[in-house]
């Protein structure tokens, strides 16, 4: 099963490598991985999408927690959450018919045209993983010349406990 795991880690040299190496060394799979600073620049949030049976996922969480600089690990599958991924697609528009195929996607706000070239467009879509897959499928018919995806980011609606990153950020902003 697909799981989205959120990791707060000290923003230090080599910590990302340590996490990525843990996945490869222990044979866990990474479907996508995003990393960026939190409000507190000394803490990074990683969002890892991985898959495996419950036992594997639990083991991944425990192994991540074992890392010295990891502050918090949350398997977000246990929580109500918002998940988003952004994709940029370079789509060929060779004729009027192609444009006609693209237009419904634009009018339904599934994609946004961000650049228009002589022979095509670059569109952007931000949606859940499954929707992105659908959009990509639809546009494949037109001819996708290039694609870049960010990987999933996710946030729980109600975090179970205040995370370390947020505590620190709050301290920073109030002081």
């Amino acid at each position, binding site marked *: 099963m697909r799981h989205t795991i959120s990791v707060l*880690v*000290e923003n230090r040299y080599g910590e990302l490598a*340590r996490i990525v190496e843990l996945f490869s060394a222990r044979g866990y799979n990474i479907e996508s991985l995003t990393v960026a600073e939190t409000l507190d620049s000394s803490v990074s949030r990683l969002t890892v999408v991985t898959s495996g049976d419950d036992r594997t996922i639990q083991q991944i969480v425990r192994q991540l927690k*074992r*890392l010295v600089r990891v*502050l*918090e690990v949350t398997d977000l599958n246990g929580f109500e959450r918002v998940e988003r991924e952004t994709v940029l697609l370079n789509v060929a528009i060779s004729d009027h018919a192609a444009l006609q195929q693209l237009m419904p996607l634009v009018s339904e706000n599934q994609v946004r045209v961000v650049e228009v070239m002589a022979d095509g467009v670059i569109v952007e879509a931000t949606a859940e993983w499954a929707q992105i897959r659908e959009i990509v499928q639809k546009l494949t018919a037109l001819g996708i010349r290039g694609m870049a995806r960010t990987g999933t980011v996710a946030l729980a609606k109600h975090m179970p406990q205040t995370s*370390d990153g947020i505590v620190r950020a709050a301290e920073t902003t109030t002081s």
Partner: protein
Amino acid sequence: MPQMKSSATRQEAAAARLAVEPVSQTPPQPISGARILCEALVREGVDTLFGYPGGAILPIYDELARMREQLHHVLVRHEQGAVHMAEGYSKATGKVGVVLVTSGPGATNAVTGIANAYMDSTPIVVITGQVPRKLIGTDAFQEVDTVGITRPCTKYNYMVRNVTELAPIVHEAFHLARSGRPGPVLIDIPKDVTQEIILFDSPADVCVSGYRPETHANSEDVESAVEKILAAERPVLYVGGGVIHSGAADELLELAQMLGQPVTLTLMALGCFPPGHSLSLGMLGMHGMYAANMAVSEADVLVAIGARFDDRVTGKIDKFAPHAEIVHIDIDPSSVHKNVRAHFPLLGDAKTVLRQMLQALRRKVKPGPERLGAWWKQIREWQKHAPLFFECSTDVIKPQELCAQLYSVTNGEAIIATDVGQHQMWLAQFYGFRGPRQSITSGGLGAMGFGFPAAIGAQIAHPDRQVIAFVGDGGFQMTAQELSTAVQYKTNTKVVIMNNNYLGMVRQWQDLFFKHNYSSVDMEGNPDFVKLAEAYGAKGLRATHPSELRDVLERGLSTPGVVVMDIWVTKEENVYPIIPPGAAAREMILE
């Protein structure tokens, strides 16, 4: 479930700060990075380092020469030996072992030792030199990505990018190495960092906010585990190296006696329970006792204490303790449920958790000994059915006889370090280690060449004790050059070579599992080990016949200085019992 790891941060940091003695109250002095490092080591209580100099680490060696009074440096002959020595030193004392090597090949040679310490959770700190900062990433002379290479085999590692970070990193490294589940920590220091001069006065401040090792188990969990253990009809206590790390042998003995339940030890736990005790079933696992493995197979409650369900213990995992509910005491949450699902996980330090259990037990009515009567009757039958045995010979020295004689000559009180293989298993079977920290072995990694340098390290830690490297003829040759080190530092390290002119365990597997097709296991090029010893200025003795064995051991062990005893044993003897790899405990081959 998400877990907060930050709440105790400041408290911990404060405690850690207190643990580090402040430097003198004098005003800031201009001081080099190398000096800062050496003083930090002294503050951590280090008095011995094992190492090998080279270009990138020269400024530290320059400083060491001025600090001879406080820091005794042991010059090894190969960096792998340095790490094994530090591990032997640590295993024999419980202190953190320290290694100092240069960049590039110095660091890569150390990797086997570091990986060994990682697998066996030994607290060591490895300091590696690195090329100057401005040369990093340029493929400079003797540059390797030491931090990258050692990341998967260290508990944590550092590159010191600024001399002001140096002292805090050193103190943090020692804190990480010795706390929680212990392990190796590496500090990579660019040469120019050690040469930089700064005004330095601040004592170190240790703060690792995401790191809070478990100590006490949840008391409700302890309560329900204890109730389960008391209700057991066929219980077994399965004890691992964690009990030695946490110094919990006394608590274990008290618990076992209070419960009247059988105890079986892993290889890493040998010495933490009296070998002749009526509750002792001996070692379990691939070459463990028949009764121990059968008891685990039939157990209804299995209490794992500081053990990690290694495949050499469990054999086929789904046939391991199939009827048992499992209580798992471990300090490392990632060890719990890793290989076997635990019904009662108790996260914490073995000593603390055992004390919690003892306390809980004292409040409870213990069932009388008759409750486990049927279980013990069954166990005694297993013990009678397949005790350890070997056929004595008057023509050739049996390896098992060698181990038994070694036990008899040393009264079971020696510190003995081994490599991996047949000699290691026979010693585990036939040498009843009387106390913890006497058995020093390469368990998880199974590294040939570990035993001899580990013995030198243990001997340097305990100059007055009988320390023996018990090794095979193959493994000894992987680090035999350390004879030079053992002699240079006038140690009393003794080497007993169980010499069968074969890579015995590999030969045994080829015999049993590859239709006796021997492939590259014959060590026909072996040197004359007596002459080899003499070449290094050590004493060499040889026993080739049972009639010479006792005398050689007695003379060799009582002769001061380094002595190598070359004991010729049966060429083709197999270790029994054996659970074939991947098989269930019940499929044990007894002979």
